[in-house]
């Protein structure tokens, strides 16, 4: 069987598949380059910044995200059916995939290690406030938490609250403030 060391196992599998003509190593390089360098949370941050700046865009995004995101060019694998949920003073949204690691790739890239961890998958649904505290987030006592468990092919993006004191910033400067974790619902966006 394949070697027990996973690094050797992956290499052995790639070798056999390449010999069989089933895999093109250059295609693997291309896939890796896509998710290491080209698709990442900056995409989501641009969408958030636009939503903060343009009420009609925001309304359309919350109503039916797919056509809006397609116009942005942010459609693709693991982002075919998007729903954007808005954080307010009354409701804080968080996203998890308890069954696996579903995540909006075209907007945020590959999920971080903690998102795929047993601890996050197990705990985010049962004790979201304790998990948020581990990210340094404390919510007001009367704010409800809604945890979206991605159990189907629908992918969720959190629209964080725009911080006070950012009225003068343009879209690019706003996007710089938006962290990946804030779009999963595990961080609050702060003013610069």
């Amino acid at each position, binding site marked *: 069987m394949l070697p027990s060391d996973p690094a050797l196992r992956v290499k052995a599998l790639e070798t*056999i598949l390449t010999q069989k003509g089933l895999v*093109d190593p250059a295609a693997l390089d291309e896939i890796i380059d896509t998710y*290491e360098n080209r698709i990442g949370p900056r995409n989501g941050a641009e969408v958030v910044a636009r939503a903060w700046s343009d009420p009609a865009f925001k309304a359309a995004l919350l109503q039916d995200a797919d056509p809006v995101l397609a116009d942005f060019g942010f459609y693709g694998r693991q982002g075919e059916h998007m*729903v954007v949920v808005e954080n307010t003073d009354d409701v804080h949204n968080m996203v998890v995939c308890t069954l*696996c690691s579903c995540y909006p790739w075209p907007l945020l890239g590959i999920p971080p290690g903690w998102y795929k961890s047993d601890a996050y998958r197990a705990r985010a649904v049962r004790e979201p*406030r304790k998990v948020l505290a581990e990210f340094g987030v404390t919510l007001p006592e009367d704010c409800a938490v*809604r*945890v979206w468990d991605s159990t189907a092919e629908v992918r969720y993006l959190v629209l964080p609250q725009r911080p006070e004191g950012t009225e003068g910033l343009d879209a690019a400067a706003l996007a710089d403030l938006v962290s990946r974790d804030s779009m999963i619902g595990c961080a609050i966006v702060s003013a610069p």
Partner: protein
Amino acid sequence: MTRVHDMGGRFGDGPVVPEPEDVKFHADWHPRALALTLACGSLGLWNIDVSRHARESLAPKDYARFVYYEKWIAALADLLVDTGALSVDELAAGQAQGESPLAQKKLNADAVAGVLAAGGPATRPSDGAPRFGVGDAVRLRARSENVTVPGGHTRLPGSAAGAQGRIVRMHGSHVLPDSNAHRLGEAPEPLYAVALRAADIWAHPEHPKDEVILDLWDSYLDPA
């Protein structure tokens, strides 16, 4: 009973450890495992539900000890052997025995961008109209088991089985993974976002206002 992957609500896991955004992978072989899995998916030998079920079908002790991409590679090897794309002898020898008849389906480098951008939408027209609308109260299936295939794939988390919830969003009609994972057809059904009160699924909810929202198929639900 569900399988080992259904861990929502489980006790005993440690803290969540945040990470900076520039950490994409934790070892050089991780991106290779990811890319190998995506590239093999293009051969058309399985669908996304078949591949999810392959990962979930790892022995619980392996699932628990494997790092993330190790699960992917183990499931990929299982799928390649199950579909006849590779033989056990080839895996054992680390050497291919001749070119595959599927070689013309190989994902070439110049096709990668198009394939990733095209995605694989799960929406399909379905025969049945939605039985529920936004605001309707529903009762979730009592057991988080595949009703057709023992030990089969399902998307109803065990922690929520039997609970009452309310429809908060309509997602249209989607492929039913319980069927598609076992190559029994796409069997599309209406899909809904269903909100459950934390107090209805946990003995010690953190806050009376908190909710968990699940995406659930029509056949998982009854009127409440």
